[in-house]
């Protein structure tokens, strides 16, 4: 069954172009220049019910604009979309009862009130029956471990606690399709991991379709079976995550902070490992996972150097895009 389908979906914004400085402002005031900015060039996409799809791309690729068109927030410039059988911008209200949306930078929690009050308001917005609401709320509070801060004003919560509440609230009305726009932005590794686990759990148990935008490759690796990579407003790659991992995400970056007295030159050459940046205290290595394993490199590093800190991360999305371009998608 199809959860969402788009055909040549396109969004163009008209933006004012102004030269730098005060003189530019005067010129712009007297003779404004407008130009079209294509945020989404053309998106053709089909997502099946129950799928977890990662919608990836660097900043400005058109991820958020696409998600806003699919939730009925923005009207497209042209093209079509059907989400759960509705045209989002024409049947916004009807569709909104059946979908959920979490925007990492736009909170639906009442800032000065504890999350429990927002739960209550959301239950009225979605017109939930009281008995259903209480049972569902209690279940989500338990799953997301919200108990300790349920009665604390949102302004006093940490970002991680707030995001947990945001996502729990978005599940309150049992959406058939959940849009998550950068849900892990700005979160630390532990909180990211917990949020990913919870989303996976609800997808498995309730069959919720998840459409997730992120520029964090980790969200895709740990949550989704399919990844759609977009760039400059168009789809660059639509492939299973396994294939992407094998072909594109075959590099990890290790950042090391050396302890006082430790010397980077003591690190022996390691196969499949390249030093991409270094100074007296820091070292950055790129590891080719097709040649060697991350554990092997870390063992060698720990044996040769005294460390203050180690971070292992995926290459940035920009690098992944460059790689996809290089291999012709």
């Amino acid at each position, binding site marked *: 069954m199809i959860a969402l*389908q788009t055909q040549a979906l396109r969004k163009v*914004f008209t933006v004012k172009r102004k030269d730098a400085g005060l003189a530019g402002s005067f010129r712009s005031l007297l003779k404004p220049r407008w130009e079209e900015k294509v945020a989404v060039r053309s998106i053709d996409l089909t997502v099946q019910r129950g799928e977890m799809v990662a919608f990836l791309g660097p900043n400005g690729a058109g991820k958020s604009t696409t998600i806003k068109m699919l939730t009925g927030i923005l*009207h497209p410039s042209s093209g079509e979309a059907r989400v759960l059988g509705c045209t989002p911008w024409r049947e916004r209200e009807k569709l909104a*009862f059946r979908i959920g949306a979490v925007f990492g930078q736009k909170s*639906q929690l*009442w800032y000065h009130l504890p999350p429990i009050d927002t739960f209550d308001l959301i239950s009225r*917005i979605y017109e939930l029956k009281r008995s259903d609401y209480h049972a569902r709320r209690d279940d989500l509070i338990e799953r997301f471990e919200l108990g300790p801060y349920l009665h604390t004003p949102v302004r006093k919560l940490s970002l991680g606690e707030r995001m947990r509440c945001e996502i729990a609230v978005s599940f309150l009305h049992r959406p058939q399709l959940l849009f998550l726009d950068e849900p892990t932005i700005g979160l630390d590794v532990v909180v990211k991991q917990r949020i990913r686990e919870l989303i996976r759990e609800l997808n498995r148990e309730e069959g919720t379709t998840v459409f997730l935008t992120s520029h964090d490759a980790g969200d895709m690796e740990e949550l989704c079976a399919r990844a759609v990579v977009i760039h400059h407003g168009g789809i660059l790659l639509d492939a299973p995550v396994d294939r992407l991992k094998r072909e594109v995400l075959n590099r990890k970056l290790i950042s090391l902070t050396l302890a006082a007295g430790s010397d980077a030159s003591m690190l022996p050459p390691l196969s499949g490992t390249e030093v991409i940046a270094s100074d007296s205290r820091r070292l950055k290595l790129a590891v080719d996972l097709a040649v060697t394993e991350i554990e092997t490199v870390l063992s060698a590093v720990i044996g040769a150097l005294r460390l203050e800190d180690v971070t292992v991360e995926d290459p940035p999305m920009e690098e992944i895009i460059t790689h996809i371009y290089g291999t012709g998608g």
Partner: protein
Amino acid sequence: MSTEANAWEESGPASSWISRCAGTMSFLLTCWKVNLAAAMEYRMSFFLMAGMMFINNFMWLFFWSLFFGRFQVVNGWELNDVMMLWAVTAGGFGWSNMLFGNFTRIAPIVSSGQLDVYLSQPKPVLLHVLASRMSLTAVGDFVFGLVVYALAGNHSLTGLLLFLLGLLISGTLFIGVITLAGCLAFFIGNADGLAQQMFNSFVALSSYPSDIFKGMAKTLLFTLIPAGMISYIPIGLLRGIEYDFAWKAAAATLVFGMAAMLAFKLGLKRYASGNAITLRG
């Protein structure tokens, strides 16, 4: 496009309009409850802001009383009429700002892309936005309106009903006119300053006796900038019903309310969202 997606089962709440209205009312009540709770989070601020506005309004009445001490009647207006004008203006402004406090902030909300959360939820967007804020100072305005009515109003049942009708017209006109001005943001971008000026002018003009204006100014006050429909209420409705005025005031309220809703609906098609970090409450 595939029609397979249509096979999704219909779900969600009952679709009859009666149950939808009941659902919306229940949502509004909870929204107001949450707003009040949020306003009371800062106890001292709550009492200070409401109290200061109450005192501020009384200062104006004090100046008017000095004025009428020298001139008993001005263009047919007496001190009691001016008091009732302030009761209707402040009271109407008060209730509209308490229940639909975002009507003064439509322009900045639109231009900074803060409609996203409202648009992603299944409630009428304009209603949802308007009802999502309660102004603290408005509590002072509303209480002031009631106190002045208690001091200077007609306390018969008819008098009370006419005062309530005056409050309804006044508050609804404030919401309609200021929302309409705020909707300019959909069409010209940053309309914050313009909407603010419109707001200030409208509030100021509605708090002076309409009969001190003549000619074109008076025509404008009863048409394009319908502040006269508020400021004439003490004469045209409360002192004695002038049916010609009453139906025109009701019609203006309806027209500006509908125009605001239409402008907002059309504007949503042009809404461009934004990347500002936004928080509610």
